């Protein structure tokens, strides 16, 4: 009998030992990896990963990045926005992840709005910054690409549904557009003074030329001139307003006056009949695919 009860007791001890052994853990919590951010943005996006440090570099092409000569000042305005769309997280090939949470941290000197669409898993953010560079800062345009100007830096913390966190540093830069270069040629095609004025060979180092303008025997707004006549002619144009974004090159229609002004045409040459022989001044410029106009150039034609 005593031995019988002993058996029961030992059996119960075994039962107690069993009661503390469930070692299962949530499969996905165990096997989830640090997520990768999947981003949809305008511009070039690079995501560079190194160990646990991740960096997102966004280079945005901007048109409002111009060097302007205005008296003794050199200044550049950068006024632009970009949309930062986070499409989701890439979790081991499963994408997107629901319940993602994105926190923007350490953004300074910029205005930042965010809107998180939970259903579509998209975070939209607008970043706005205006930079005025001082006189001593010159914008250098390279052969095929404009200067990269760092706009803002910040940090993004991303949390997935399994409470894994990834930290990204975000660097947003502007790449200034290189303005196009018009190449002018003129030849006589008919009597008495008919000439073909052509900008066929114009080119854009970081894009393509889309529009052309000619001003024949007229005057251009000196704001665009390659030589600085602004101070001399300023008072004649006091009532002309600048573009609200301080775009320093006059838009089509306001850039010249008098004479024959051929406004923004996609045709790269014009036939023009001069009224008389002698020297005639032709101003010309062109616009590239991002809407940047070159400055006005001029050539004097000896019409015979």
């Amino acid at each position, binding site marked *: 009998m005593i031995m019988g009860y002993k058996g029961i007791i030992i059996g119960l001890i075994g039962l107690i030992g*069993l009661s*503390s052994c469930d070692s299962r853990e949530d499969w996905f919590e165990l096997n989830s990896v640090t997520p990768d951010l999947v981003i949809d943005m305008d511009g070039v996006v690079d995501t560079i990963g190194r160990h646990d440090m991740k960096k997102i570099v966004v280079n945005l092409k901007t048109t409002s990045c111009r060097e302007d000569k205005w008296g003794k000042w050199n200044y550049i305005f950068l006024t632009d926005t970009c949309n930062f769309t986070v499409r989701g997280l890439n979790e081991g090939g499963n994408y997107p992840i629901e319940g993602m949470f994105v926190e923007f941290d350490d953004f300074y000197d910029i205005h930042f709005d965010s809107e998180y669409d939970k259903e579509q898993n998209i975070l939209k953010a607008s970043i706005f910054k205006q930079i005025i560079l001082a006189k001593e800062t010159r914008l250098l345009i390279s052969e095929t690409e404009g200067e990269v100007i760092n706009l803002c830096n910040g940090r993004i913390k991303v949390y997935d549904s399994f409470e894994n966190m990834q930290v990204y540093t975000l660097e947003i830069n502007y790449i200034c557009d290189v303005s196009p270069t018009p190449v002018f040629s003129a030849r006589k095609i008919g009597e008495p003074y008919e000439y073909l004025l052509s900008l066929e060979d114009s080119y854009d180092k970081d894009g393509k030329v889309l529009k052309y303008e000619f001003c024949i025997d007229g005057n251009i707004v000196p704001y665009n001139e390659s030589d600085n006549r602004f101070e001399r002619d300023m008072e004649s144009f006091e009532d002309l307003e600048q573009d609200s974004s301080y775009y320093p090159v006059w838009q089509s229609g306001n850039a010249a006056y008098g004479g024959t002004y051929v406004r923004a045409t996609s045709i790269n040459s014009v036939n023009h009949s001069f009224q008389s022989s002698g020297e005639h001044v032709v101003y010309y410029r062109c616009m590239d695919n991002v809407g940047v106009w070159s400055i006005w150039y001029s050539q004097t034609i000896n019409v015979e």
Partner: protein
Amino acid sequence: MNMKRVYVILLALICAVGCCNAQLIHTKGKMGVGFRGGVGLPTESSSYQIGYNIGLFYNLYTSNQLGLLIELDREKKQFRYSDFTNQVLLGVGCEYAVWKPCKWLYMNLDLCGNVGYDEWNCTVMDWDEKHLVFGMNGGWAMEAYPWHFLSFVLKARQFVLFGKGENYLKPDFSLGVKVNW
């Protein structure tokens, strides 16, 4: 897995076998089919939810003490980020009646090899995982015979299962009813 606890359990079971005097009424050729239902254990990973398991089992006694045991189980449990379902777990092994403290009560120990199919469904995203599992389990049961054709089985089992590069321990506690002939 806490190996120390596993060793203690094995030692306790061996001692239990050694100190018991078995007088049994199971005879060769007797068999029985039963149904069981039970629960698991709450754990932190499962947000302290217990889950439940159900199963069928079959006994065929080859002698007074030893018999064939076949089990078929199914388990469902909720974890922090997923719904776990053990769709099927087949166990084949032997059951040994180690002790009969009185005329209508048996204490049995059993050992089975298992093969099954686990399914994890993530509740926070569109993700699931399914794979086979293999392993074994040891069980301790008290079987009561109010009538010769019907018995009630109170059972505790500990599973050791392996699947897709991982392994885990899984206990369950169940109460079953068996029809014998």
